[in-house]
């Protein structure tokens, strides 16, 4: 088990180094960084000295080493547009994005699993058909359109929910949360639903398909032959066996949720990392873009690692094959 975790962790480090190469090369592809920093009238000698002081004369491999070393210490340089350390900007924005992503995922998991189980167990009811239809909409309509439609309905027409921003936030150390104020909670509703809708439909369809599959297995038939109650069979036996693939998808999707948050954050002017990234793209603020890339990859890789470990908790068969392999 430990060896398994360790091996996965080493793989994760490998992936992060690869991402580091990509984000490092962004600086070089996007032109000379010195040009981005100085004015038109800077002389060649001044440029050369800046170049030297920034270490841009060093061989590429040395520069890359510095870059990775700094990135590992969470130093991503200074933003061109804000003139502030990128890491400060990211940390300031991260709680907003994470809160949104977590709320969206919880919403997607809860409603997706409930709807999936229901539409598997009551396959022919009208509600199950309605869920299927809704899920089709959720999968095919683009996120921003749903967001805009919701803003139109709930903010503009009905005036129930705020159309942008996070509402009032409370500071807890460096973390800011909108979960503790009414306006913060109200502001979370629409972005969370917008962001989570796609995952919800995905999870719902997955749970439904898996559940139907599991209900056909021999051990469910045998559980019925043992006279277990319907509830024990459906929720004790069938649902738990359904959850293994659901955890994978939900876990991997959490990374996409954070990545897709760019769109939702733009629609709702949500002050998170995604919005920061979009602004950075508009202003060719390479340090922020590179750092964002690293951050999102780090989150992806970490989630993958956690999902792999979670598997072994849900499915005992993996536990022993994992330990037997070593």
């Amino acid at each position, binding site marked *: 088990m430990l060896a398994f975790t360790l091996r996965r962790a080493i793989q994760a480090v490998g992936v992060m180094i690869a991402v580091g190469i990509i984000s490092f090369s962004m600086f070089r592809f996007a032109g000379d960084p010195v040009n981005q920093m100085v004015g038109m009238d800077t002389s060649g000698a001044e440029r050369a000295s800046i170049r030297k002081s920034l270490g841009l004369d060093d061989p590429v491999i040395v520069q890359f080493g510095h870059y990775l070393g700094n990135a590992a210490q969470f130093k991503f340089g200074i933003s061109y547009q804000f003139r502030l350390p990128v890491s400060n900007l990211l940390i300031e924005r991260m709680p907003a994005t994470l809160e949104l992503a977590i709320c969206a995922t919880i919403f997607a998991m809860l409603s997706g699993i409930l709807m999936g189980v229901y539409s598997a167990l009551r396959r022919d009811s009208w509600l199950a058909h309605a869920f299927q239809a809704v899920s089709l909409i959720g999968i095919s309509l683009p996120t921003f359109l749903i967001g805009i439609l919701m803003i139109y309905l709930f903010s503009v027409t009905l005036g129930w929910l705020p159309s942008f921003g996070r509402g009032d936030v409370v500071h807890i150390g460096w973390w800011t949360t909108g979960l503790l104020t009414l306006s913060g909670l109200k502001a979370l509703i629409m972005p969370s639903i917008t962001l989570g809708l796609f995952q919800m439909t995905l999870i719902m369809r997955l749970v439904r398909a898996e559940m139907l599959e599991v209900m056909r297995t021999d*051990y469910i038939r045998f559980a*019925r*032959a043992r006279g277990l109650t319907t509830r024990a069979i459906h929720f004790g036996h069938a649902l738990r066996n359904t959850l293994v693939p659901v955890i994978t998808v939900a876990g991997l999707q959490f990374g996409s949720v954070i990545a897709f948050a760019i769109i939702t954050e733009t629609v709702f002017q949500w002050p998170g990392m995604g919005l920061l990234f979009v602004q950075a793209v508009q202003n060719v603020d390479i340090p922020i873009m590179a750092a964002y890339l690293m951050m999102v990859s780090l989150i992806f890789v970490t989630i993958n690692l956690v999902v792999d470990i979670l598997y072994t908790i849900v499915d*005992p068969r993996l536990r022993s094959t994992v330990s037997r392999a070593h």
Partner: protein
Amino acid sequence: MTEPVLSVRNLQVEFTSRRGTLRAIDDVSFDIAKGEVLGVVGESGAGKSVTGLAVIGLIDPPGRISGGEIRLSGLRIDNLPPEDMRRVRGKRIGMIFQDPLTSLNPLYRVGDQIVETIRTHLNLSETAARRRAIDLLAEVGIPAPDKRIDGYPHEFSGGMRQRVVIALAICAEPELIIADEPTTALDVSVQAQIISLIKRLGRDHGTAVMLVTHDMGVIAETSDRVAVMYAGRVAEIGPVQDVVRNPLHPYAKGLMGAIPTLAGEDKRLVQIPGSMPRLSAIPRGCSFNPRCASAFDRCRIDRPEPLPRGTQSVACHLYDSVPAESAA
């Protein structure tokens, strides 16, 4: 005579499909007494398993019991409300399925599955149920049951898993055990152990056993009586020695002729020509008539009803001395 544990009368099971209604079980009747093992043999698709599932009430739509009745120690169970029937399953009727590898939920410890079943049916505390589970595992011959109870199904071999399945089937002291091909998925050496285990448990607890299999060897070894099924009907039923030594129905004769003898005489094994008809194309008259060497005119028109003949009962016109009125 005491009441039989299981009494099936004129059972019919139908499956509704787009192309019409198929009758998988047609007019099947048999009894199983306390402590008796009834073997049910036949080719694949003869309706053996469906009969077992009908008795335990697990025929799923589009299938349904369309006629006849099933009584368990006198109580009619084929028309019980679902919740009452659930309480009968596992408690009064235990079932063993063919494949022990897939019968247990892979995500739960063996002990949890047994305890769960015990506590569903018996009013026992968690600890008492666990003690009982350990005793059961010991009874079905699992070594070190107090340790193995915390194992997961994948940590058991096929034979051991089938023992766990048997422990699950008997955990509430059922009156009847339905074993549906309990040894088909196992090694030959393990088969013998499982068969003798089922036989011993049936004897020790006075449980009636319905043993569904296509293996005549298993039947001959274990059963007290045997029912030979063909195309959803019982062709012949009787004490196992009589049916094996002196089969009456041409189909039963064919089956027995296909068993190699240990004496090793250089006789060619008899083969029954053709194959069993599909449910959608069951011939008129006796369903066996196209394959039967002794078929005559009446067999193609009239459906034979079971007739008592000595200790056996056979559904064949050859044994009907009364001339048929409709055979013209």
